[in-house]
């Protein structure tokens, strides 16, 4: 189980922090978003519900947009557009 951060295509990235619990998901998400350019999209896959709440608040403050959410079976995928 390792954290996977990949470039899928131009402007499209994916971060998989499945299996990781607080504080890893939110801290890695912050790090990943810092590497992105404004307008780039990040698909974030995680399975630690409480990190989600922190990530929502972080995006809210930083001006990043969570534009698509898929939830269920204990795993969550969010697409975030960097502001």
């Amino acid at each position, binding site marked *: 189980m390792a954290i996977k951060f990949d*470039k899928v295509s131009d402007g499209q990235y994916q971060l998989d922090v499945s*299996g990781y619990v*607080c*504080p890893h998901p*939110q801290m890695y998400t912050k790090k990943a978003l810092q590497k992105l350019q404004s307008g780039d999209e990040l698909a974030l896959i995680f399975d630690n*519900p409480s990190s989600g709440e922190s990530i*929502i608040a972080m995006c809210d403050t930083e001006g990043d947009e969570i534009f*698509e959410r898929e939830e269920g079976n*204990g*795993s969550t995928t969010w697409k975030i557009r960097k502001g």
Partner: protein
Amino acid sequence: MATDSTQVLSNPGLLAHKGGYKAMALVALTVILSLGLLANDTRWIYLLVYVWFGVAYGVLLQYGRFCMASAIRDLFAIKVPRMAVGVMIATALFSITAGLVTVSGYSTFHPHPLGWHIIAGGLIFGFGMIFTGGCASGSLYKTGEGNMGSMLVLLSISFSMALFTDLGSWSNNLAPASWAESALDKGMPEVLTVTDGWFDLFTAGYVWNLSGGTVADMVGTGNVWIDVFVGNVLLTAILPSLVILVILYMSTYRKGYIRRNKLESLSLGDEMSGIWAMITTSKNTAIAGLGLGIFAGLQMWATGALREHYEIFNFGELLMKMGYSEGLSIQETVFDPGYWYITTQEAQFGGWVMSLFGRDVTDNIFFGLQNGIPNPLINAPLLMSVGIIVGAAILSLSRREFKWKIPSVETAVFAIVGGALMGIGARLGMGCNVGAFFAAVTNGDLTGWIFLAGMLIGGLLGVKAFNVWLNRKSAGDEFDI
């Protein structure tokens, strides 16, 4: 963040998924076990009060994702004040119910002695907490979500506390000589060997010389309503919480609020709306805080009323009457705080397991004189902690958030090392984020804010250390694009 384009899968009804059935089965099992106990002896109601309040706390903690580790860590690591705001609101609200209980005369709260150990304990606890990913109560509810890493944290806290309170003769020299003299002066029974072991020397030779009190005592107008509501509620809990909320707003939330609302200059009204917006984004945590406040107050009241009914001061007396004398302290008492508490009962569990392996921990003040090491099956506060896990499991199953998570090696190492530090910090500081902070500041005990100050310093250092680790790791190929 725009929500119009946000797509959330619809939340099905409770019985539309397997988790819902499992949640109901868990409720049914807890009810059946409770009824079984009552059929055996109605006096088990005293223990069941702990269990069911635990279940309620577990539901609320999971609902609000109420976690002090996340409050402090998110604030320092990603500048998100959401949980810290929720904790402050919960503090203000709980103080009101705690005040009502105090005025009614049913309060079971005892103020903590004031000394350096509070801030040192908070610091060590706060540092460890960053690495485990959960505070003492947070690790309980996360265990209920199926997180086995959090379970490891609980075990590590339990055994580090038991080992720390049972340090052997080698640790005597670490204590000042004056502690040994002072400890001897207390005239404790020889069986406790109060001059043997650092924690005994610390307790009898240092902590017992200190005093503590509530702000209500200091106000001392003679009118209990004024003393409690001005001293404990307003001055100790609500005003400091409001000041911290304003600081949180100014230092974190305000920037995003201005940007989102395209404001240029802010009137006082705008600032107030901004603070309100910050509070409402923490709505779930605040609701959980309100619920925790109400239930924590009710628990004190219920336990107080039962003590009056059975004419006892401590559950140990009731256990004696019921024919259970094993594991009681030499005063024939057990740990029985009567309110929301987390760590002492975990230490008892650790001590009990150690005693199974032949280690005599009853020659220590902590176990032998104060808390005992009752069998976990009749340890009421420990079953409250089990109740918290069950309550959190019930809600997370029904919300489809339950998932068995096996920790990676890294997470497991952090859980064990961080949990050990939390255990040491909790025993030094006489409690965790609940007993030493939350229950203290809401009952007019200023030592709670000192513990929080220690936790903040420890948390800040912990985040810095964690970042160093993270940067080292991501400098490898793992985090390159």
